[in-house]
């Protein structure tokens, strides 16, 4: 039956580069009318760039996009909307003060005089079809749940008569009940004859609603596969597809006595308290998707979030008070996942950045010592292979990789015992990645304990000595990296504890 239908959307030979990074290197993609096509792949595999091309947010470098057989430009969001494509994202674009009906027609150019009754009447079919209760329709959407807001997003897209709907991880922030509603809605939309592109990290959902799946890897697409012909492990194999390369340094030969002992750590984003022990010279990798709690644990240990709790010992000495300043004093350095926001000072020099956490060290008796500052900045730059001539450059002018080296390297100035790094290589190209892995391993070999959280599973498997997997705010398991096959690692973080054991 599927063979009879020609593809509604046909993408061929799509290429797109961001500066030196080639996000798409020849991707093909197709969706038929009335089909749910799952779009899968690791972070950085190119699937979000593909989605952005389809929704007109980025212009492609090469390749063609045909919808209904006609080749289209799609270089602006308006052109994409015109072609009947609509994206339902996680980032909500609703106005919190307005109610559901008002939001549905927001920006749709509804003409003529309108009042609440007419608006509600006009919005009703769309809100009916997404299953939003009548009581919820008159409330400001700011008072509704995340899931209900997601439904209104969909209704809004339906009001524009979109035929091709892209769902970009719609369930990432939802509870189980809400997820069921969304999945049910997607199924009904496809049954109506709409085409659905469904992007998710949760592989289980693919089998609940997907007809076919396209797996992306390294900016290239693979032939679509019938979901009925495969299973979770089959998809995982296709997503990974390759052995670990040599970008990862050797693992620790010997792990020393416990250095950090964290007991019953709580933090926003963790559903239950977590214990963690890190030995001297050990690198612990926390694996999990966005919102899985892996990053939350680091924030909790660093004392970052107000609601963080639990007991910490560094070198057997308890860390009092549990604030960021206390943690730093106790020798715990925390490097955030968002370097632009709070990892670097873009408009200050590299030297100023590298010495920022060690301001006391370079200002003996309260006065700045240029000599000490140069020496410390020079040492740290050398350790992280940052060119000395860059020390006076504004940090914002460096490449992403060098910025990340500054963001991590500055912490070595406080001579920490434990280094916590969230997403150590986000937005960093593969060469600088390998350098950062090497530097982290060197630090561990000198006796530091390192814990990093990452949604890049290859990174966790390649760099860590011990892996702890997270799923929806809970630890799934903790195991030595060499004893955890990558397929099980991925099953843990995409699917939780229910499969793969």
């Amino acid at each position: 039956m599927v063979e009879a239908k020609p593809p509604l959307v046909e993408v061929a030979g799509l290429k797109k580069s961001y500066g030196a990074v080639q996000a798409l290197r020849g991707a093909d993609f197709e969706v038929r009318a009335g089909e749910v096509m799952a779009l899968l792949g690791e972070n950085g595999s190119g699937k979000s760039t593909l989605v952005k091309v389809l929704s007109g947010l980025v212009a492609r470098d090469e390749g063609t996009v045909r919808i209904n057989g006609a080749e289209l430009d799609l270089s602006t969001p308006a052109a994409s909307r015109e072609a009947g494509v609509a994206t339902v994202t996680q980032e909500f674009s609703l106005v919190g003060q307005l109610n559901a009906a008002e939001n549905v027609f927001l920006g749709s150019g509804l003409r003529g005089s309108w009042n609440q009754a007419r608006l509600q009447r006009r919005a009703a079919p769309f809100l009916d079809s997404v299953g939003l209760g009548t009581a919820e329709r008159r409330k400001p959407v700011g008072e509704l749940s995340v899931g209900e807001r997601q439904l209104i997003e969909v209704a809004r897209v339906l009001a524009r008569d979109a035929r091709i709907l892209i769902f970009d991880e719609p369930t990432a922030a939802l509870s189980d009940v809400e997820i069921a509603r969304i999945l049910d809605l997607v199924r009904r939309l496809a049954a109506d004859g709409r085409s659905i592109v469904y992007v998710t990290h949760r592989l289980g959902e693919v089998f609940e609603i997907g007809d076919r799946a396209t797996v992306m890897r390294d900016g290239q697409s693979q032939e679509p596969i019938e979901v009925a012909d495969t299973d979770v492990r089959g998809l995982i194999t296709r997503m990974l597809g390759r052995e670990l390369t040599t970008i990862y340094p050797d693992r620790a030969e010997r792990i020393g006595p416990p250095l950090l002992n964290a007991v019953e750590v709580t933090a926003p984003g963790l559903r239950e308290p977590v214990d963690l022990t890190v030995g001297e010279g050990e690198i612990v990798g926390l694996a999990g998707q966005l919102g899985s709690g892996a990053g939350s644990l680091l924030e909790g240990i660093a004392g970052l979030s107000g609601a963080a709790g639990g007991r910490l010992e560094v070198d057997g000495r308890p860390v009092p008070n549990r604030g960021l300043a206390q943690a730093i004093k106790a020798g715990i350095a925390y490097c955030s996942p968002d370097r632009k926001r709070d990892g670097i000072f873009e408009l200050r020099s590299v030297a100023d950045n590298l010495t920022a956490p060690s301001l006391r060290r370079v200002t003996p008796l309260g006065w700045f010592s240029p000599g000490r500052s140069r020496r410390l900045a020079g040492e740290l730059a050398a350790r992280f292979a940052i060119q000395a001539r860059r020390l006076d450059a504004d940090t914002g002018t460096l490449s992403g990789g060098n910025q990340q080296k500054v963001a991590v390297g500055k912490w070595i100035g406080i001579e920490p015992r434990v280094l916590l790094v969230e997403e150590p290589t986000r937005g960093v190209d593969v060469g600088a990645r390998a350098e950062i892995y090497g530097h982290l391993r060197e630090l561990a070999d000198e006796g530091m304990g390192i814990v990093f959280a990452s949604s890049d599973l290859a990174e966790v498997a390649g760099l860590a000595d011990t892996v702890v997997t997270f799923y929806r705010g809970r630890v799934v398991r903790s195991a030595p990296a060499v004893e955890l096959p990558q397929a099980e690692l991925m099953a843990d973080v995409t699917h939780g504890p229910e499969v793969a054991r």
Partner: protein
Amino acid sequence: MSTPSSVAVPAEGPSAGALLRRLRPTTEMTILLGMLALLILVSAITTEGFFNSENARAIVRSAALTGIVAIGLTFVTLSGNLLSLSLEQTAAICGVLLAMMLHDGWAAGLALLVILGVAIVLGVVQGGVVALGANPIIVTLGAGAALAGLTGVISGGTGITTGPTSIGWLGTAKVFGFTMPTYVFIAVAVLAAIFLARARAGRALMLVGSNRDAAAASGLSVSRTTMLAFVLTAVGCALAATITVAQFQRADTIQFEGLTFDALAAILVGGAAIGGGEGSPARTAIGAVFIATLGDFMVLHNYSFGLRMTVQGVVVLVAVTAFHLIRRRRTGR
């Protein structure tokens, strides 16, 4: 992985290139000095009685008071706390209190200490509220109104004269033809520059202004820095009040009208980023001289008050726009 060229050698000291770069004035400073030179040139050609040493001294004298307050305000702006709108009220209450104490025969040294204490308290309170997360513009607007009222109550609404005092020299003494306030202005600019470049607190202030979140994540105290910035601003106002009382031997509630806007204009013409982290006391000082020169030019041409305000406002707008465009080009955004 790293190639030999990317491995850094710990630098013994700044390279020759880095030294040169540090000596070379920034783009903003070059533009600022160019603007000032152009203004002086145009004024000299078109204005009778402009280009002589007496008028130059008059310009510097009027720049001094604005400049001292503006340099104080620079700390608030650099620390990423936008600006303070309570400058003239802070100066006024300090002036009135000082005049009353001197009038009542207090020792000048003690009176000055009290004024310093008042300024510190005003700075800590306003900075403290801002550090809690309040908008600095709203906080200082409110504080300004409250202070203006309080000053009226304290002074009984009338001017207070001190008669000759032992601090009179601060306002009137001349050295090499320039009056004391000019030297105070220069000293304040130099000390402020040294503080920002060399003191731990000054460096922390620049970091907080550059990226508040990153500063907090690095373990720096944002709230302490914010309070310090507001204290330094209030101390600048107290210093301006002291000089004024010393010079005129009197104080009243509206003595400093227009000071807030003039100081703000000096900072903006000096090219400080209102969002923080970018700017310098030296540039603010030159901004103050620019505003004073412009004012002098307009007074010599008998511009009306309204016209003077219009021109000054337009100049500030042009300067802000120009510096914004330069910064955007440099950061490539």
